[in-house]
């Protein structure tokens, strides 16, 4: 299998606080990988570093065989690495259809037009297609502010999937979504992912969702990967189970080694 993402010794420090340390992860094309861990375990820091939102303090990141450390989100998106957000990043005061039309115009990778309307028949057709696929067609002419949280999440992910990405990183796709909606949302997302043949890495707190949709899990604690392997094996691990029960983990402080009394 082809390696699509490889991080080596990836670390991020905020002053004396270690947010992520020595993360060595290799992901092959087509994998669906879950990232779990308590709050503050370093999951989002990891995703932020990989997607160019946060520069790593040290380490390397390879995507598709190319070093991408230091590249910003715009360049990474062009290389096929994209993401969604825990809090959907949308244009709230614009109609849903325009959110997609701009994203589609951007995905064409051409200079933006000054006169030609953004709503071209081709883009509208493509927007309708993705709205239907994400089951949010009913909101096409609504402002984003009129959409419920689950629909916003789907729109955020839909926008991330435009422009032929190769890998999609989802940051807590089901957070803020009701229990009843979670599975329907994930079914919709995973079907869209499957159709596009994307590699997916997603952060999730709900272990039922993790068990159901991923084959491999990375378990984070105190900024390091404590377990990496098949979902059943990782979730059965005692240390991981303790983590899953939600016991808060104190961040590591540099130079402050634990004392034995």
């Amino acid at each position, binding site marked *: 299998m082809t390696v699509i993402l490889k991080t080596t010794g990836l670390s991020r420090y905020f002053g004396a606080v270690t947010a992520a340390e020595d993360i060595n992860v290799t992901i092959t094309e087509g994998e669906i990988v879950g990232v779990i861990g308590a709050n503050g375990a370093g999951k989002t820091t990891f995703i932020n570093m990989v*997607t160019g939102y946060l520069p790593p303090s040290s380490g390397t990141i390879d995507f598709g065989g190319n070093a991408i450390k230091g590249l*910003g*989100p*715009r360049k990474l*998106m*062009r290389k096929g690495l*994209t*993401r969604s*957000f825990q809090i959907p*990043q*949308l*244009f*709230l*005061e*614009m109609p849903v259809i*325009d959110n997609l*039309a*701009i*994203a589609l*115009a*951007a*995905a064409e*990778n051409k200079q*933006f*037009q*000054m*006169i*030609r*309307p*953004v*709503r071209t028949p081709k883009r509208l057709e493509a927007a309708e297609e993705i709205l239907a696929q994400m089951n949010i067609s009913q909101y096409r002419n609504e402002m984003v502010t009129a959409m419920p949280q689950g629909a916003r999440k789907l729109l955020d992910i839909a*926008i*991330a999937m*435009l*422009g032929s990405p190769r890998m999609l990183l989802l940051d807590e796709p089901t957070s803020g979504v009701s229990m009843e909606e979670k599975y329907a949302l994930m079914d919709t997302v995973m079907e869209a992912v499957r159709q596009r043949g994307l590699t997916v890495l997603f952060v999730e707190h709900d272990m039922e969702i993790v068990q159901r949709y991923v084959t491999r899990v990375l378990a984070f604690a105190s900024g390091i990967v404590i377990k990496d392997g098949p979902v059943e094996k990782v979730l059965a691990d005692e240390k991981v189970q303790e983590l899953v029960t939600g016991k808060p983990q104190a961040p590591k402080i540099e130079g402050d080694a634990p004392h034995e009394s």
Partner: protein
Amino acid sequence: MILEKSEIPLIGAAVAIALASLVVPSWLVFTTTLAISTALVVMGVVMLMRAGLVSFGQGLFYCLGGYAVGLGGRYLGITDALLLVGLGVVVTVGLAMVLGLLVTRYREIFFAMLSLAFSMILYGVLVKSHNLGSTDGFGVVDWTILGFTPGSGESSTRIALLLALVLALGFALFLNRYFKSSLGLACEAIRENEVRVEYMGVSRKQVLYINYVIAAAVGSVGGSMTALAAGHVDPTMAYWTISGEFVFIAILGGTGHIAAPFLAAIIFTLVRTYAVELAPNAWQMILGIVLLLIILFLPKGIWSLFTRKKGVAS
């Protein structure tokens, strides 16, 4: 080019004003010309506001356009109004392309203050330039248009209005489409969420830069037309209170429609004219109260009266 439905009222309004100019008194023609010229600059302010940027320095480009007309006639011997307007655009675009590299890196109050600072630098330079009349400014040469000499007085005033109308209509039609284009909408997207714009693979800097330069060019045309109509330029064109007026008018009209700056500029000019007439020492207070009422009751500007009505009807 096929006209859009929304463009027909704009053309209709321009034709109506042109026809009305044949019968209304000269002072009203002159006032309308100034209002349309001001509206052109305000369109630039609105362009920036749609991208989430408030400029308190649009007077810089307004003044450049005006002085290009004055200096072009005085030192280069150009008398053709279109050439003089074009000269203003060239000079302004040149400067805006340099300044844009810096100012589009900033947002909110920093952008506002930086734009104000550049405008005030030009003001300071002009005030110190005694050969350009210092604070008094200087007169603009008698201009021609495509070989025709309008002469002085009423005929010149009416032709200036027609020229302002044609230019304003051209820019209004362009901006009406621009606001719906990918570039125009990307400006709104940047105002809404810069993070998402970047993750869509769009360069925020590039979009804002192009928008800034176009807004400057539109502002320059407004300044040139003011100079041609008034026959005089002076450094106050770059003074910050003039830029403040442009922001005032932009808020008054709102950013909802391309016609809003025109409507607001005409209302502003008339309110100011009558306020000065009624209360020569307190006209600014009247303008302040008007703005206060607009912000309180029509936060999206006067144009929201029309869209609100439309919303109720539908």
